[in-house]
């Protein structure tokens, strides 16, 4: 029997629990960025300096406004999917479910209102087979970016997670500080990480704003996280790439 040879992207993902890749079709990314700029001001703006612009007092309202608009726009969603399609094909497979709503984070300098503390998506009941796609609209580095605790160390934490129950997650962050990676991505690069790795962000201590989208994907036929939740099926996904054999197969199953 033959065995598959893994690509560099696949090898990186297996080793680290995440992989960064260069986006081939930059036009799709430019479309996404332009849409955000249009919703914000109606004209081209430097997103890095968004915090300096007027009218951004309620950041959460701005964030929700963008989320609502983009998620009503199927072309936007398709272009987002297309950006990740080839990489998802390598990492997840070709029959993919996509989270119904794409999420957005805006991280202005020194803002503590939008912090996402250390967590793994599986701890919120998501499937162990799920991946998170992350798309920054600006260059990200240091605390302007997000951090990940590579899979080896995330597994180590998980074994002892309840040991930290009455201490909070900061103690995990401090203990693994040297292993944690703040990811450097240039505009034009995308990130995919497994739902099993611990990740989060810290207060943005740079002088630039970060805009980044996130969306979850999983193989359509991979299991839900039955160990952790009572969920038998998640309603947060919609299937985007069912193959003909599966379409017919599902029709038969649904008849039973």
């Amino acid at each position, binding site marked *: 029997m033959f065995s598959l040879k893994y690509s560099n992207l696949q090898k990186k993902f297996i080793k680290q629990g995440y992989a960064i890749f260069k986006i081939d079709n930059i036009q799709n990314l430019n479309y996404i960025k332009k849409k955000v700029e249009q919703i914000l001001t109606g004209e081209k703006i430097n997103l890095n300096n968004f915090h300096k612009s007027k009218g951004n007092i309620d950041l959460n309202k701005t964030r929700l406004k963008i989320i609502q608009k983009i998620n009503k726009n199927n072309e936007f969603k398709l272009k987002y999917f297309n950006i990740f399609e080839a990489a998802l094909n390598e990492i997840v497979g070709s029959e993919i479910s996509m989270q119904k709503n794409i999420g957005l984070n805006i991280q202005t300098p020194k803002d503590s209102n939008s912090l*996402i503390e250390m*967590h793994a998506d599986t701890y919120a009941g998501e499937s162990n087979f799920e991946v998170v796609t992350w798309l920054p609209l600006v260059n990200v580095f240091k605390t302007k970016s997000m951090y990940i605790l590579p899979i080896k160390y995330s597994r180590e934490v998980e074994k002892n997670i309840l040991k930290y*129950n*009455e*201490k909070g997650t*900061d103690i995990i962050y401090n203990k693994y500080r040297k292993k944690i990676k703040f990811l450097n991505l240039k505009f034009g690069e995308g990130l995919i990480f497994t739902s099993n790795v611990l990740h989060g962000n810290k207060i943005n201590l740079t002088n630039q704003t970060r805009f980044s989208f996130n969306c979850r994907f999983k193989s359509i036929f991979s299991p839900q996280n039955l160990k952790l939740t009572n969920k038998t099926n998640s309603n947060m996904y919609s299937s985007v790439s069912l193959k003909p054999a599966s379409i017919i197969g599902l029709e038969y199953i649904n008849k039973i």
Partner: protein
Amino acid sequence: MNKKNLQGYTFTRNKNGLAIPTNIQSGIIRNYCEKNNYNFKLHLDEFCLDGSFIQLFQILKNKKDINAIGICSIYFLPENKDLLQKIFSISKKRKIEIIFIFENIIFKSQNINIFIKEISQIKKINFLTKK
């Protein structure tokens, strides 16, 4: 006048049949903030591992610049009385109010034992008809 900061705390486990998607919980907390003039800080999801309250302790022990924690229900607190004592003691010490939106009760600086009895009483009343 500066608004007080309220940190949302959402619960991911099914508690006595009470299972509310976290985005809905977050919306409820955000709505509470708007009506009561609080500045909403993005909610933290509790881990769904049995017995985990790590994110609640993360807020109580490590989060700065917060005046209140918004939780949908008293049912999202631990049953264990020692753990409850610890939670309310830290909250009292750090002057962080805990607001339970469904039950419309707030823990501020009351006597902790009396407050624990009070929430336990509410739970008993709610389950009077339970077989």
